[in-house]
């Protein structure tokens, strides 16, 4: 079953003199439970593609349908709510809220969803334990290593029980050991919760784990391969 349907997606940036087509007519679908890497050289348009897919950057034209809803037809307020309930984000620089503890960072999104306190606390503990840092629930991001912060970010992304998680270069700031552990973790979450993961990456280790690799160059998909893992 298709979770995401993308049709003729175009993004043109207007600089002072030239128009740059960062994404140039991408049409692609993603299914439930996918573990997909979007790869390509720097400037190929993969981050722009992910941002439009995640409702962060408005496309110049084209459609992004998630669960049958064209997200770019939603009002900006509804789009924020849609992101909160349907999309998890993992960023390259972790981007945890620095004044909140690991537990509070995970709980934050459930708080926005209006979940009851008991449910929030239970799920926060469960998620942090499942990403292997249950003992750091009260630590602030500054007290955690990069790998630990990214684990919290994964737990935060999963907290709202989203349809899919978008991860933009999630391993770029991690060392080799932390990268391997994080990928194992995300693969496990993918299996355990059947959550769709879509990565933008250049990291070969991510590609090695992916069940599908979409290669983008000059804003176009030039290759779309599926693998049995």
């Amino acid at each position: 079953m298709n979770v995401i349907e993308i049709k003729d997606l175009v993004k043109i940036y207007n600089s002072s003199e030239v128009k740059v087509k960062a994404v140039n007519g991408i049409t692609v679908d993603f299914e439930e439970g996918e573990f997909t890497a979007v790869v390509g050289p720097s400037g190929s348009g993969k981050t722009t593609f992910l941002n439009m897919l995640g409702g962060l950057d408005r496309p110049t034209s084209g459609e992004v349908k998630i669960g049958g809803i064209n997200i770019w037809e939603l009002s900006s307020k509804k789009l924020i709510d849609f992101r909160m309930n349907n999309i998890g984000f993992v960023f390259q620089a972790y981007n945890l809220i620095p004044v909140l503890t690991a537990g509070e960072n995970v709980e934050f999104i459930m708080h926005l969803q209006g979940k009851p306190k008991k449910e929030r606390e239970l799920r926060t503990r469960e998620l942090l334990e499942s990403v292997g840092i249950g003992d750091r629930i009260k630590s602030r991001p500054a007290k955690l290593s990069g790998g630990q912060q990214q684990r919290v970010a994964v737990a935060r992304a999963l907290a709202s029980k989203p349809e899919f998680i978008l991860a933009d270069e999630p391993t770029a700031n991690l060392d080799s050991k932390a990268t391997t552990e994080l990928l194992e973790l995300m693969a496990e979450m993918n299996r355990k919760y059947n959550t769709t993961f879509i990565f933008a990456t250049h990291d070969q280790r991510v590609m090695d784990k992916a069940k599908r690799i979409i290669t983008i160059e000059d804003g176009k998909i030039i290759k779309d391969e599926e693998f049995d893992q």
Partner: protein
Amino acid sequence: MKDYLKIAWRNLWRNSRRTLITAASILFGVFFAVAMSSLQLGTLENMIDNMVRFYSGYVQIQEKDFLDTHSVNNSFSVDDHLKTLIASDENIIQSTQRIETFALAGSESNSFPSMILGIIPEKEEAISGLSKWLGEGEFISSGSKDILVGKVLADNLGVSVSDSLVLIGQGYHGISATGIYRVAGLLDFPLPDLSKQVIYMDLANCQEFMGLQGKITSLVLMVHSPEEVTAAMERLKPALNPDLSIYSWDEIQPELKNLIEGKVASGKIVKGLLFMVIGFGVWATIIMLMHERRRELGVMIAIGTQKFRILILILIESFFIGLIGVISGVAASFPLVWYFYRNPIYVTGKMEETYRTMGFEPVLKFSMAPDIFFSPAVTVFVIFALISLYQFYYVLKLKTVEALRA
């Protein structure tokens, strides 16, 4: 709300130096504004108090044309009805009768125009503590035929205690008012304008001098404070004989009112400049703060935080900073204002001369009126709140994807 308060409070202390710098800007704003307001109000109140006590009183009842003519022909008698009216008004704490007129004062060597004040010495003493300004000689009492002369006027005339002065003026209905009076004492007023022209004599003595048997030119009324003036006037006015008028101190001394208004306006300009400097400082800090938090705000919006929730968070943070700054500003200024309220600054040297030349008592007094704390605190807080609106603008204009790249 509890969670917002928690995040806002922690946000304040994530960069405690920046928070303290912002709060310190507000603190200094409040501190200097309170100190300036206190000094200005204290000095103005002192000026008003001096002028009111020595000259006009807070309220005066006069014959209806006296204010314009300043002629003893426009004098009146205080009848029983008026006495009862004054006595029954609980806000009127003191009253006295005066004759205010002009005469030429002449000594052996000089003559100068002078302002003659016929007073009831005991009552005047109770209102203005007149005798404390007695530099030489002795004070007069009711029934005395002697006079008190301003020190500067006496110096100009070349007379001292026990010397005689000739007074020549125009009395009631044009009669010639002439008399020779012994100088009982010299009054060394803090207000040079008074000191260089005033002569006090007993009311009965003055009535005799001017041919004003039983008549006066002014009935001076004292209330507790300037704030009670209007109410007292409104109560008395309807009951007055139609030949009489009632005036407040600022109607009698419009030049003093103008001077005060000028001083208040210049004080406002200085405070406005102070607030502007501080406002720009706070604004710069806020711009820096928002720039530093740009990415974090982008992340919050990306993961599903509505902008209005971020605005609430920022509002609480600003409220905290504003409150810390304002409360510390008031707390820091209180001891200073209290100290100078208890210990006024007496101006000396050249400054003293300047003050005296301008007709002011050379003293800087501070006020402890609640408004001198409240008004600057509210003003600075409102300015800070308005500047903080920039953060709202910033968040509302924030483009998530650009913020994430920051």
